């Protein structure tokens, strides 16, 4: 019971810390968009408290700066929440801080990895928001949208934060590319970046380079790379070539004629060459050549 209370207190304290300094600049792709840990709170949360009193003190100090909206976030349902082990929580905090540092140095991919690991260990809305912003900086709008929408849904942010995040979401939505893949064979199984998609249906995806594949019975697997610009709407026709028994008659005829030509050529060459290799040496079986 005592341990459960400690964990609950620690979890609450960390959540408070994450939302304690909601810095959200006008340039959301900058590292300054990310939540930072207040120095005192970081110290308090980053160290496993030795006694219940210490945890209480730290929680109290952090809670002193909690905005009303942010404090509500503490009550968000989480998959692990207060049940997270202290080790996971500490690791989550370390990765969160690392993510902020990496974002400061514009290492977005590494920052996203750090936030993702932190969120996996301790799923907090603030971490999700930072993760979404890192993915936005990487141009992974689809994923960023999902994360920021989840953040809005789960964290009940302040009106300012809500407005800012919503603005970012709308901005990314407007930049999504729209792709419609039209396979040459009906019923073809399609994927976009290894994710199944439906044929002839508009799908929204990130601007950038993608790989579209298609498979169908009796056809060779087709794979095409395409690059989509921001806000581009593209209708992409994916051609699948027949294989095996489904060979078009033109290919059959062409292959047959070609094969006959090859065989005839080889036979003729052998006949002529063999004629050259064995000149007529007459009845005396004497062959004279310049060499």
């Amino acid at each position, binding site marked *: 019971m005592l341990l459960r209370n400690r964990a609950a207190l620690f979890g609450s304290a960390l959540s408070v810390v994450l939302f304690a300094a909601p810095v959200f600049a006008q340039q959301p792709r900058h590292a300054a968009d990310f939540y930072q840990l207040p120095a005192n709170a970081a110290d308090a949360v980053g160290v496993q408290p030795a006694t219940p009193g210490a945890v209480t003190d730290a929680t109290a100090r952090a809670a002193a700066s909690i905005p009303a909206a942010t404090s509500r976030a503490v009550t968000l349902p989480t998959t692990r929440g207060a049940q997270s082990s202290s080790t996971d929580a500490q690791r989550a905090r370390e990765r969160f801080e690392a993510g902020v540092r990496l974002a400061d140095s514009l290492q977005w991919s590494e920052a996203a990895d750090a936030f993702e690991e932190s969120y996996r260990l301790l799923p907090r809305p603030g971490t999700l928001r930072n993760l979404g912003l890192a993915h936005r900086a990487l141009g992974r709008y689809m994923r960023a949208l999902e994360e920021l929408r989840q953040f809005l849904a789960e964290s009940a942010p302040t009106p300012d934060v809500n407005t800012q995040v919503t603005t970012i979401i709308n901005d990314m939505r407007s930049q999504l590319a729209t792709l419609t893949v039209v396979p040459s064979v009906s019923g073809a199984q399609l994927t976009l970046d290894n994710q199944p998609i439906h044929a002839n249906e508009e799908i929204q995806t990130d601007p950038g380079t993608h790989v579209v594949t298609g498979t169908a019975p009796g056809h060779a697997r087709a794979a095409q790379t395409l690059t989509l610009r921001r806000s581009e709407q593209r209708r992409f026709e994916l051609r699948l070539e027949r294989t095996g028994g489904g060979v078009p008659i033109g290919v059959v005829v062409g*292959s047959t*004629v070609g094969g006959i030509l090859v065989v005839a050529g080889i036979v003729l060459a052998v006949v002529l060459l063999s004629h050259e290799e064995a000149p007529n040496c007459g009845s005396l079986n004497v*062959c004279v050549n310049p060499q």
Partner: protein
Amino acid sequence: MNATRIVAALGMFGAIGSCRPPLTQMLLVIDTDIPTCRLADIHLRCGYNWDGAAADSGLTCDYPFHRGSSSAEIQLPGSLGFTANERLPNDPLTLVIDDSNGPIPTLRRTVRVHFVQRQTTRLVVRLANACLARGTTTASHPCPTGLAICTLSQSCEAAGLTCGNDGRCRSVDVLESELEFGGDAGLPDSSADDAASCFVDASTGDAGDAGDARRD
């Protein structure tokens, strides 16, 4: 479609490869109406762009043949093949066939012939008995220097000619029109009358003179 193109390309390649022109060669048929007893040994020399005289320059072949019926001997008519020089296809082939009888053979036939490109031609060289006919040197029958009596073959050579198939002097050069095309024709029937005796009428006292040979 790529497979079709590859197959078609291979077919074209094969067809083109099969279009390699045929060999340029000549089949020489040696025949004679001279009895074996009078022409037992034949010496054949040849050379591409050879002058027909130098023994150690430009000579390509040098075959001594002995007429007979054993496996080591040859029977006339007989044939042998010559292939053109691929690098110098226009070089003539010079053939010298003689009886190996001394420094000035009593019988010698010289032939200079050009190959016909990408064709197999056939040339018949007949060593005529008439070429062994002897005669004293005259304006119409000059003999090599130092000889009062010589064979027709020797006389032809003295005039810069050679004794032809018909037993008359002629140029050593063979015209293309004299060649037969195709190497599949068989050998001519033997024209040598080996049944003829090499005995001569003792009364003539002219043994060894082919022109005076008599049958028993």
